[in-house]
């Protein structure tokens, strides 16, 4: 068959190239004369999953990035820049960052950058090039493993177009600095924060200063609240929330009402089942609730009946979401403790429109019969059990021995 692909217009071929890593896109220059300059017009620079084997390879990689940027000098600006580098040896950050900062500044100066995703697995914390935080065209920013320090910090923050912010392993000087960053993103819709660290351990957010701050356009949030007690009020408009509950989390401490929240994921419940009642109280429109007793920050201890301390008491009213909205409840890493069973019973008893309750148990397979016997407010509720024998050495969710039984809706 003849060469059809080369008959397509430039912009279509560039679009195909935009889905390739830059390494490969550049290599297409040798396919034929038709292809020699196509890669230059691709507005995507994707250096992700770059694995550098040794110092020599690192020099070649740096040379490559410089060549690419310089060749593109008069080309259309870069809209998408992703740099994700892993080192097979110990690469000190001070030998990397000056070049990386130059690359980022080069791209920023051309203007038009919309998507930036950075991670370098160096030894020592890279300092974030601060210009990134005043890029007015940026729509999505994903950062992993950076230190944010700059004395100009609060004066340069401006991210009016930013809709997505994902921060993982980011170190700030103070909690205030993180709040200033959020405040610079008034149009944020999707927030993910995980493992935020603060140099100043003593500092706590002054309540009055941030009392009325919220991100009104935020629809989706994923918050790891283990190291940093996130001011929940900021999230009050979200539709979807994933949270890891800190050990020391106070239940009533300034939890706002989440009027738009329909889907919630909670991790590290650690058998504090009464917390779920607080969730129901503060989320009147909740439709789907996914709870994992376990999670990244939970206590890895084999629980036994002796640890069964929670004394469950049915609340004296039924929260609105249970009566009117809750359709799905999934409860994972369940041991079969009293608190857990009572919670499940309480939900079955009151959730009038519940369609699915799924219990993944790592404790007692016998609880299946007990739970199936509890009265259900919703006649169309399907109860499903998955028994996953717990292997503490494995962190993966998928199990080899999953034994799933499903108990359909009973009248």
């Amino acid at each position, binding site marked *: *068959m*003849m*060469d*059809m*692909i*080369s*008959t*397509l*217009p430039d912009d*279509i071929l560039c*679009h*195909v*190239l*935009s*889905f*390739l890593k830059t*390494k*490969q896109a*550049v*290599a*297409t*220059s*040798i*396919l*034929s*004369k*038709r*292809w*020699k300059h196509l890669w230059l017009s691709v507005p995507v620079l994707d250096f992700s999953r770059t694995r550098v084997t040794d110092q020599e*390879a690192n020099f*070649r*990689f740096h*040379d*490559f990035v410089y*060549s*690419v940027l310089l060749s593109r000098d008069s080309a259309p600006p870069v809209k998408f820049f992703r740099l994700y580098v892993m080192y097979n040896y110990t690469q000190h950050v001070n030998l990397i960052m000056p070049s990386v900062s130059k690359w980022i500044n080069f791209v920023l100066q051309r203007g038009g950058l919309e998507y930036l995703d950075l991670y370098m697995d160096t030894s020592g914390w890279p300092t974030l090039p601060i210009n990134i935080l005043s890029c007015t065209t940026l729509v999505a920013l994903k950062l992993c493993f950076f230190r944010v320090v700059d004395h100009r910090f609060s004066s340069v923050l401006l991210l009016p177009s930013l809709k997505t912010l994902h921060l993982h392993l980011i170190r700030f000087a103070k909690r205030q600095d993180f709040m200033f960053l959020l405040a610079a993103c008034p149009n944020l819709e999707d927030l993910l924060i995980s493992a935020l660290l603060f140099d100043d351990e003593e500092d706590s957010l002054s309540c009055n200063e941030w009392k009325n701050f919220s991100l009104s356009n935020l629809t989706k949030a994923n918050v790891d609240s283990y190291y940093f007690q996130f001011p929940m009020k900021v999230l009050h408009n979200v539709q979807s929330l994933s949270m890891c509950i800190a050990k020391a989390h106070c239940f009533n401490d300034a939890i706002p009402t989440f009027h738009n929240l329909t889907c919630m994921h909670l991790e590290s419940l650690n058998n504090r089942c009464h917390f779920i009642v607080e969730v129901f109280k503060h989320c009147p429109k909740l439709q789907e609730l996914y709870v994992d007793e376990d999670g990244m920050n939970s206590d890895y201890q084999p629980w036994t009946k002796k640890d069964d301390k929670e004394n469950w008491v049915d609340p004296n009213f039924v929260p609105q979401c249970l009566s009117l909205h809750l359709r799905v409840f999934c409860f994972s890493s369940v041991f079969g403790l009293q608190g857990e069973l009572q919670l499940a019973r309480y939900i079955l008893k009151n959730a009038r429109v519940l369609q699915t309750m799924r219990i993944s148990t790592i404790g007692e397979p016998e609880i299946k019969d007990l739970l199936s016997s509890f009265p259900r407010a919703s006649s169309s509720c399907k109860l499903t059990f998955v028994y996953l024998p717990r292997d503490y050495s494995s962190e993966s969710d998928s199990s080899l021995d999953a034994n799933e039984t499903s108990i359909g809706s009973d009248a």
Partner: protein
Amino acid sequence: MAEEKSQASSSKMLTLKASDGVLFEVELNIAKEMKTVQAYIDDCEDIETIPIPNVLGKHLAIVIEYIKKTNEEYDAEFEKQWNMDDLQLLLLAANYLNISGLQECLCKAIAKRIENKSPEYVRKVFNIENDHSPEEEAKLRKEYKWAFEGVDKD
């Protein structure tokens, strides 16, 4: 999205005629997803049969099916079904008919098929004739050395 399309108030039907004479009767709103067809309709309002001279019946059928069904899950499964030749022809069809969603899906699918493959493999799969002089090719390989390291031998 598929539901919206089938519930559209306009039930006016149009006939599309592929390059090999195969006829397809489609609803107006489906046909309009092809911007080329839309332009045709805008020009001649009373048209009932629109010729599609560049696209075989086989591929036009696939394109119409795609427009009717399209959603994310369908996209993911869609591209797996076709061989490289078909993917290219479909992309040509989607480009001619000006259907941006399908173009996007196909560009991505084609890119995925050549991911991590050597330039030699890519040339073979697309039937691209290398008209670079050996010196020119050597110069490019040297200038962007790192781009040619560690590629799948295929």
